[in-house]
């Protein structure tokens, strides 16, 4: 059904928080996404002429790089972009077949490839370019938030996170319930001044972006995140214990190593 389900009290909204301060633009998240999803829920993710002059294919996650500001204040910012699992997903409501839907239980936006007619209207309705057409199968494909990982009981609990989050070498990607204001990801957004992309469009994206930490930047207090949200699966999105000596990077690193 292309009705967007009514949000209930305490609605779970699974999504990603992407830290633009720590992202180094390595494209590992895009590669890991492709690797997992080409045999996952929306499989395959076809490639056309992968070794030719003009390779082309379906990717759920793409990493842009921008320059912002001038001179000494200029910055290079790497910018991963995938489906934002919006609260007002026009990609769902425009779908004429009901193939596009938003899950009531966790807010994940999915495509039922068995009934999609490949009209491409959803990709026109998405301001973010999150949906890509699979010319082989004739249907639309998109990020599933690794729905086949986050609830996968065959995986260890720490692995029940999207592939992009698990692989990120700098911990720039965080996964959790953004509907719960007390969740680690929500607190991270709160503390770091996380923002929406194109808020003026009114799609109310669930995924948030964290601005660069910069003492001179009025938008960020410059504090490190209060908690570590990497590797906390949907099944165990809980408030982690406060880390000892959170301000000391060596102790933080030790804490992380010992927590593995």
């Amino acid at each position, binding site marked *: 059904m292309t009705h967007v389900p009514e949000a209930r009290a305490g609605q779970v909204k699974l999504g990603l928080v992407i830290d633009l301060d720590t992202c180094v633009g390595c494209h590992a998240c*895009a590669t890991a996404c492709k690797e997992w999803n080409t045999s996952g829920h929306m499989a395959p993710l076809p490639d056309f002429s992968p070794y030719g002059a003009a390779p082309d294919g379906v990717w759920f996650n793409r990493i842009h790089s921008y320059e912002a500001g001038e001179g000494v204040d200029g910055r290079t910012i790497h910018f991963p972009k995938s489906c934002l699992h919006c609260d007002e997903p026009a990609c769902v409501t425009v779908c004429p077949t009901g193939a596009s839907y938003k899950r009531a239980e966790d807010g994940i936006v999915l495509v039922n490839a068995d009934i999609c007619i490949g009209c491409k209207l959803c990709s026109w309705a998405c301001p973010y370019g999150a949906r890509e057409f699979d010319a082989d199968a*004739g249907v639309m494909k998109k990020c599933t938030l690794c729905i086949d990982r986050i609830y996968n009981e065959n995986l260890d609990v720490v692995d029940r996170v999207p592939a992009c989050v698990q692989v990120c070498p700098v911990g720039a990607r965080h996964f959790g319930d953004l509907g719960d204001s007390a969740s680690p990801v929500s607190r991270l957004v709160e503390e770091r001044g996380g923002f929406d992309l194109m808020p003026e469009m009114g799609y109310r994206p669930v995924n948030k972006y964290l601005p660069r930490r910069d003492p001179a930047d009025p938008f960020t207090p410059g504090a490190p995140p209060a908690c570590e949200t990497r590797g906390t699966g949907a099944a165990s999105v809980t408030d982690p214990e406060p880390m000892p000596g959170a301000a000391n990077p060596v102790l933080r690193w030790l804490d992380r190593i010992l927590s593995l």
Partner: protein
Amino acid sequence: MHPAFSIIFFTAASGIGYGLLAIAGLAAAFGLLPESRSLAITATVFALALASAGLAASLLHLGRPERAWRALSQWRTSWLSREGVAALATFAPALGFAAIWAFAGDAKVLLGVAGLLTFGCCVVTVACTAMIYASLKPIHAWRNRWVLPNYLSLSLMTGGLWLAALIRLWGFRAIAMEVFCIALVALAFALKEIYWRHIASKPSGTDIASATGLGRYGRVRAFEAPHTEENYLLREMGFRIGRKHAARLRAIARSLAFIIPWIASVFALFAAGPAGAASLLIAALAASLGVTIERWLFFAEARHTVTLYYGRDDADAGASSRA
């Protein structure tokens, strides 16, 4: 937006077909339709064939055309679904109207009622077509109040010109309808000019700064794209048309869709016999071709917000839409 031939043909041809049926229905309600079985059959079959060909062409755009029937299910939220339902449902009153006009043309009241019903259904169908585009927020050139009146007036104008031409070819005259068509051409022209002015003057309010949220650091430029080659997003939504071509095509669309049909149909008012019929036929043909070019521009000139992420719109925003 990529100007796909299947969609341009769909919106133009079905617009003409439903427009012709709508004007015929309206003319019937005012008692302006001549009684002629062969004219009735020719006009309605021509209109329904155009509408059907348009719908068939729209299927060519689908990745899985064999599943097209599923598109009729989500009319509660989807304008595309509503369009499909309305387009098919309109065939019922249209066929009834055609049968009455062809075989019971003297039953004026019945013909008028069926005509009005057909008119209403056709207008709803064309309105749904327009709303498919007018409902898309990421496309500034489409998400505005002028798209719906544009689609309706162009559909009624082209359909009306075809009906007027057919009536003349059959040797009848319906002066009131011809005058109505001349007024429609002028109205459609004015609405299209207003639309063009609107998209050139009104900023979208979205730019690379709000798309990335990086405007807080100063001017934002795309430094590196995620991929070296064109991908689906850029092919489908990053279509670029040269400013010169846009201006030239707009001039051609203006001439073919509005200026030539208006002059030819005014001329036809004062010309009896074959000259009048020929000039109305020229008006209808020119308008159809002109609307097809107009529709190509409607797609080609429309910019999608996804191109902002590729840094494509900041330098020449709105440039190609000024002509």
